């Protein structure tokens, strides 16, 4: 590899930001100043293979610059590339992939105003207009319309990020123009976010298995976590051994909660039995599905439970390293998880000898940078490895060739925390909860036209109506979106659908990741569908044709028919159906395959354009 670097230089601050992550450059070959070139530099070169093997630090490096400066200049990118022996063209391709990075100068403060489904229904467009009017040119704040910020229970929401050392963030939700402007202009003095427990209307209910500790324990205290039953599941795991853990998880009937509903035990077994080493565990905390915020609440309210669950999963699959891929828009969850991991490490619950059992395991956090597609498991691997977050073709499957080409088990946050009750109450007791083929408790993210939006924990099998009643559904319900933007709409007369994988499938819809977004008849349905189409157009990685162009054609057709019905809309609906069918059949990954679902269900079940 004969890399060519331009002659743009980093500023001192950019260099400092990168050096703080990678350490100072040791020779002029990897970016130290030429006049510092030492005689020894002519005989050896740091960098080369050793630097290339750190390519996975590209994304953290881009974050380091973006956090400190607010954008990524040519000089900074080239310097980072020298340090990691990454071709500048590739790094540029990576930097331009993520929504939170900019390769053009912009103000140090960026205010992300959520315009996605729940926020749109709660008046996001007025909020945007108001904020933009107040923070015009010269205000030093860039206002960016953002996809779902995962704060749907407090919609509308805004997130301010101010570059510097350290980077400052402030969340405003529910946001008013005043509060959002305040968060952007003085992030340090913005009022603190309400406790995560506020997102759990059932908080304190002793029957809760997954959310039982949210609002009860101090999320910063490991002792408090242990006092509330923490680390009993890990002790049990060590008592029964890795094969025992996998057996329990299999017998419990746990399936993935991210949307695909794959049996977790089978995934772990397949990973554990791979001859290639090392094995990896990846926790997918890149929760970006519009309407989803459960992983954020678990990480903010009960961070140690995820640390413990990841340790158990790592132990079961034979991994000594776990990556927690946490979405970039969750500053508080990031802080809580960083703290929890640090405490666990300091107390011997992570590290070379977990609980004195001779098992080595550690967790590294990787921050996403604004890309829904990185929630797709193989795109997530590419993102961690320092490549563009484009999904890979399957097969080979991750259990065989996953992160860094090694056997990898990837699970989302909710799936992992289910392992704790499985080990504490035992597989039979766990399997007795829910229905025959959907076992255990399930988290639902309820938002929109309800009195008490938030995360609800119910055993599988409760009906949609029961859940909505719990959340206080308002009158004049028009539609419920199940499963988020990739899910489907159901009608208000279908509230007896049982919330199980098989029940929703039978009803011709999907449970997805557990999103329940209620819309009353004040929400203009065509605008909502347009927002969903926009979302997929923005979030398509662009790798395959059906998704890259299909999502654009879908949005165009919806724009054309936004105010039309019946025969006027018929031709475009036919077009939508034909394109949608090809996207579902021929796209590489789930994003393109599901991008048409919600619109299709709105046409077929709600009669959106009749």
């Amino acid at each position, binding site marked *: 590899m004969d890399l*060519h670097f331009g002659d743009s230089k980093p500023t001192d601050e950019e260099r400092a930001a990168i050096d703080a992550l990678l350490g100072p450059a040791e020779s002029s070959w990897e970016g130290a100043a030429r006049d510092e070139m030492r005689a020894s530099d002519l005989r050896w070169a740091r960098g080369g293979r050793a630097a290339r093997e750190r390519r996975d630090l590209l994304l953290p490096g881009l974050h380091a610059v973006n956090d400190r400066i607010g954008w990524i200049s040519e000089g900074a990118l080239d310097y980072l590339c020298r340090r990691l022996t990454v071709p500048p063209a590739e790094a540029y391709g990576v930097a331009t992939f993520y929504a939170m990075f900019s390769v053009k100068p912009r103000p140090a403060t960026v205010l992300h105003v959520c315009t996605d489904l729940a926020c749109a229904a709660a008046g996001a467009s007025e909020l945007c207009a108001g904020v933009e009017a107040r923070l015009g040119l010269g205000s030093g704040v860039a206002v960016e319309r953002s996809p779902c910020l995962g704060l749907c229970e407090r919609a509308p929401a805004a997130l301010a990020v101010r570059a510097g050392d350290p980077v400052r963030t402030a969340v405003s939700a529910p946001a008013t123009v005043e509060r959002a402007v305040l968060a952007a202009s003085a992030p340090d003095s913005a009022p603190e976010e309400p406790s995560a427990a506020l997102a759990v209307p059932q908080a304190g209910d002793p029957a809760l298995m997954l959310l039982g500790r949210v609002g009860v324990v101090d999320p910063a205290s490991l002792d408090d976590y242990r006092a509330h039953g923490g680390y009993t599941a890990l002790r049990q795991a060590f008592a029964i051994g890795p094969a025992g853990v996998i057996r329990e998880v299999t017998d419990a009937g746990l399936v993935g909660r991210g949307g695909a509903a794959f049996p977790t035990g089978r995934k772990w077994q397949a990973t554990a039995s791979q001859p290639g080493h090392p094995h990896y565990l990846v926790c997918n905390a890149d929760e970006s599905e519009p309407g989803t915020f459960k992983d954020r609440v678990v990480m903010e309210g009960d961070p140690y439970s995820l640390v413990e669950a990841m340790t158990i999963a790592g132990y079961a699959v034979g991994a000594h390293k776990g990556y927690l891929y946490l979405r970039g828009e969750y500053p508080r969850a990031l802080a809580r998880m960083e703290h929890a991991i640090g405490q666990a490490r300091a107390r011997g619950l992570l590290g070379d000898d977990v609980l004195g059992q001779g098992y080595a395991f550690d967790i590294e956090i990787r921050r996403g940078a604004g890309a829904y597609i990185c929630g797709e498991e193989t795109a997530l691997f590419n993102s961690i490895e320092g490549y563009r977050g484009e999904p890979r073709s399957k097969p080979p499957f991750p259990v065989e060739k996953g992160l860094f080409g090694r056997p990898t088990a990837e699970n989302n946050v909710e799936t992992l925390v289910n392992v704790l009750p499985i080990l504490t109450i035992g597989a039979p007791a766990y399997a007795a909860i829910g229905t025959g083929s959907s076992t255990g408790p399930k988290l639902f993210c309820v938002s929109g036209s309800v009195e008490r939006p938030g995360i609800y924990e119910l055993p599988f099998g409760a009906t949609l109506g029961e859940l909505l009643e719990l959340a206080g559904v308002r009158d004049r319900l028009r539609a419920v979106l199940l499963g988020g933007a990739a899910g489907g709409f159901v009608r208000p007369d279908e509230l007896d659908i049982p919330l199980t994988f098989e029940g929703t499938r039978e009803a011709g819809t999907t449970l997805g990741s557990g999103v329940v977004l209620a819309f009353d008849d004040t929400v203009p349905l065509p605008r909502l569908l347009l927002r969903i189409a926009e979302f997929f157009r923005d979030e398509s990685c662009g790798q395959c044709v059906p998704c890259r162009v299909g999502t654009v054609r879908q949005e165009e057709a919806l724009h054309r028919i936004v105010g039309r019905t019946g025969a006027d809309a018929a031709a475009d609906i036919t077009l939508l159906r034909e394109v949608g069918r090809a996207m579902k059949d*021929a796209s590489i990954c789930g994003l393109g395959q599901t991008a048409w679902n919600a619109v299709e269900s709105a046409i077929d079940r709600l009669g959106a354009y009749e």
Partner: protein
Amino acid sequence: MTVTPLGIPRRLLEFTLDGEPVRAPEGATILDACRSAGKDIPTLCQGDTLAPKNACRVCVVEVEGARTLVPACSRTAEAGMQVRTDTERARHSRKIVLELLASSVDLSTTPEVAGWLKEYEAKPDRFGPDAARLNEEPKVDNDLYVRDYDKCILCYKCVDACGDQWQNTFAISVVGRGFDARIAVEHDAPLTDSACVYCGNCIEVCPTGALSFKSEFDMRAAGTWDESAQTETTTVCAYCGVGCNLTLHVQDNEIVKVTSPHDNPVTHGNLCIKGRFGYQHVQNRD
């Protein structure tokens, strides 16, 4: 004549292709198997010298038991697999993909695509006159080649050829995301400011003419490009001792471009700047 290395003999596995039993060597793709069974499947992004990226999705086929269609170019055939290449479902996807592509980029210099559009009854116009297109001016920033991204289908072949699969120069990458994704060099700079070494191997693999010789681009603009009047002569490059094969494309007694045979075991179609572009002295008649 070029020699194709045979490699280690491979076991044959048996599967069903459109109802007929066929045998294919282990590791062969469905597309390989189709071609050796005498049936071809349209494909735009597949190339004979690069690992398939399966980004264009024109070659999708139905595999029994698979939830979605699978790309024939990259899915390896497995024993007992039941593959159907010409079902209504597969044809529908191909038709739509061709329509989506033809409505968004200029496929006028893509070989075979006109025939497929006809065969699949694709009507790219039906997305209306306002359908988003790339509509980009060709980038002419050097004397050797032209980047006309209005013709680019983002097949990634130039990226792979420039990167770890052949040239190891890593001068180009996909940047941006979604419909706005483009092929570009670092910082979106002109080619002359990039890491490009002008080997032209990206032109060699480009399936649509988005990357072309400046000579070809200029002649097309002038209306003098006439492939039917061209002869192709394969010879040996005289610049160094490696012995790369050059195929000289000659029109009206002038070399108009240089390619290299892909089945050549030394070059596999790759050349360096001298072999690819250093032909002016041959036709210097002063």
